[in-house]
């Protein structure tokens, strides 16, 4: 069963490092709340973006002043898209 991992703290909390220890290549990664700072332009997203299906929540990006369009590495989704992901993945693991 595929799992959706959600990251909800900024990179300084190093949640992604812990998550990447256990994630399966069929799993998805969703960045939300302060986790959206992982999508800030300066970060190298290809490290994890090429390997896993990555998503970032549009509302949380806009709130924090980060402009981003979907790329090969990461897809920008909205709340209805979040609901679709929850249906698509059998389980959800929150990293917080």
């Amino acid at each position, binding site marked *: 069963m595929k799992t959706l991992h959600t990251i909800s703290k900024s990179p300084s909390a190093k949640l992604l490092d812990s998550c990447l220890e256990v994630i399966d290549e069929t799993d998805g990664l969703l960045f939300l709340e302060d986790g959206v700072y992982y999508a*800030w332009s300066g*970060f190298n997203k290809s490290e994890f973006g090429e390997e896993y299906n990555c998503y970032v929540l549009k509302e949380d990006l806009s709130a*924090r*002043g980060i402009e981003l369009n979907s790329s090969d590495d990461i897809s920008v989704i909205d709340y209805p898209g979040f609901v679709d992901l929850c249906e698509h993945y059998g389980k959800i693991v929150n990293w917080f």
Partner: protein
Amino acid sequence: MTEQLKEFTFLARTAPYGSDRSSLLLDIALASSVFEKRSNYVFMDDGIYQLLKGQNADLIQTKTFGKTLEALSLYGINDIYVLEKSMKERCVSEEDLMLDPVVLNQEKLKFLIKNSRNLITL
């Protein structure tokens, strides 16, 4: 950089929205300004994110924190700084930031802290 002794140095160290720490620190600073003492307001670590331009928190049903920060100058707190190391770590440049803060290195931050009667960090 002013050499005079300051009453407070405020260290903003957390991202906005994820917790209420950033707005609590601002509340303390604004309240302290009533006593008309000179203060420093320093953004470091994830606090750098508080200054990003173009924030719009309507979508997450809260107040836009960036706009709230503009109150600092209205309350007479004009000595606003950012720590260069925290900016570099987060790949944030001066053009990304509002309020035109003065960029500090660690040595200068130590100096500011040394010359303040009180240090408040959130």
